[in-house]
């Protein structure tokens, strides 16, 4: 009877990427026609042709910028989860620590990160340190909160299983805590990776001299709408690629848990 509940039937049609691709083509066509017919000036909205041309004439420039954004995303993500996971486990396991800090973490999560940028820049200057801290921050919250939720979701009795087998703390972590929290961690990763790329681009815009965000800032300074749109589009494409990759990896790792 569960079969009835699952909307699986929907998925077995045309692959999603194809559908997306088609829609995007339609959108681009509408955009191109609109620019032409409505005589929208380059200044307001450049035609897709001129954006593509802009990118095509500077492949190296955009590649460098994209790689730099990618590097920032990954560094920030790495730092973020490297801090968030131990903190998450510590908070989930040590009750007084959780009581003291968890509400704060939840609340801090609602703080718009962008407001602390000027402070960070003053202290750390422009560049990878500042931007990766920003990215790491944005990664920290979803991952640590998910880690805590993951550990909390472990039925308490499950620890009885390993205790009667004589397991020590490390074995308990290895056989229960870690694998049980893993699905939560993975969804935390996926959520935060999507956030990370956005924050990466934005923090490059305001606190760095590399990457796609910087390219967009250049566009703003040069009053060059084409360049802004180009940077935004590439960032979007990068976001989609990273997201799909993350989703794929998550599916692979969590095969055991779902299916």
């Amino acid at each position, binding site marked *: 009877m569960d079969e009835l509940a699952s909307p699986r039937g929907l998925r077995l049609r045309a692959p999603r990427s194809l559908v997306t691709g088609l829609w995007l083509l339609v959108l681009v066509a509408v955009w191109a026609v609109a620019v032409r017919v409505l005589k929208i000036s380059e200044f307001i909205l450049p035609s897709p042709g001129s954006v593509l041309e802009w990118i095509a004439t500077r492949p190296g420039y955009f590649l460098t910028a994209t790689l730099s954004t990618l590097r920032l995303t990954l560094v920030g993500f790495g730092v973020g989860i490297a801090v968030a996971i131990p903190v998450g486990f510590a908070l989930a396991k040590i009750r007084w620590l959780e009581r003291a800090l968890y509400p704060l973490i939840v609340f801090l999560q609602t703080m718009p990160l962008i407001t602390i940028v000027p402070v960070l820049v003053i202290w750390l200057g422009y560049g990878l340190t500042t931007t990766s801290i920003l990215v790491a921050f944005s990664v920290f919250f979803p991952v640590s909160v998910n880690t805590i939720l993951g550990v909390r979701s472990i039925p308490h009795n499950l620890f009885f299983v390993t205790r009667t087998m004589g397991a020590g703390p490390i074995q308990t972590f290895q056989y229960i805590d870690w694998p049980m929290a893993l699905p939560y961690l993975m969804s935390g990763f996926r959520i935060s990776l999507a956030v990370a790329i956005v924050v990466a681009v934005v923090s490059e815009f305001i606190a760095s001299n590399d990457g796609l965000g910087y390219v967009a800032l250049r566009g703003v300074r040069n009053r060059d*709408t084409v360049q*802004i749109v180009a940077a*935004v589009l590439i960032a979007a494409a990068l976001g989609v690629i990273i997201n799909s990759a993350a989703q794929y990896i998550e599916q692979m790792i969590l095969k055991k848990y779902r299916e």
Partner: protein
Amino acid sequence: MLATDVKSPTMSPQFHLSSPLARFMPPVLVVIGSLILWEFGSEWFELPKYLLPAPSEFMNRFVTDRGVLAYNFSATAYVVILGFAIATAIAIPLGLAIASYPSLNHNLFPLIVFFETIPKTITAPLFVVWLGFGLSPRIALTAVMTFFPILLNSIAGFSAINPRLNYITRSMGATPWQSFRFVRFPSAMPIIFAGMKMGMVYAVTGCVTAEFVGANEGLAALILQAADYMDVQLMFAAIFATAMLGMLLTGILLGVERWLMPWRRDL
């Protein structure tokens, strides 16, 4: 990027906190502790006040500059609330429509995910170019940033409902509207609210970004203005106020959630 990924923790007696006092005391103590550390830390570590003012200094500005801060606070709050409301008003019905028609879902969902991943913050300058100055680009950016998490969660919420629940209403002879009102909508609410909570954070971020790019009022405009006058204390006061705004609005949303969804109160 669904907020539903975060499953609600299973109930276990270990997480029943005894009293509100026991619940709020520890975090409050931590906050007070860190403020004290900050206050005296700048003395102990010789942090220059013109870069990092002590809490007492910029908190003071909430008294002396309360007019300016209140004005800009309400300006930002106005844009955030309006943008958020617009986004919600469009996203939830659209989510319902998309969830209700599988073909629509199949076609649009990937596209929505695509747009969701576009870093919308850096499009702020474009919004100013397109919409001029004043409220419209700010509201637009706020709404656009808020829109997608709410839309995605509405779709998820309206799709996630157990189709067997319809058996109940059908065997009672319910009309489609009754089925929606009594089953589908309340079932979707928790997931939609999760999206709205996420959207609220985005809304504040969106508004602040738009203000950074072009606005003559609002907390971020105040931050820039203060930076121009090298008034670090006012800057911090404005930053603090922005954070408070985010928390306040999220808090209100949590309150509304509790009020609307009494069955989830003890989760």
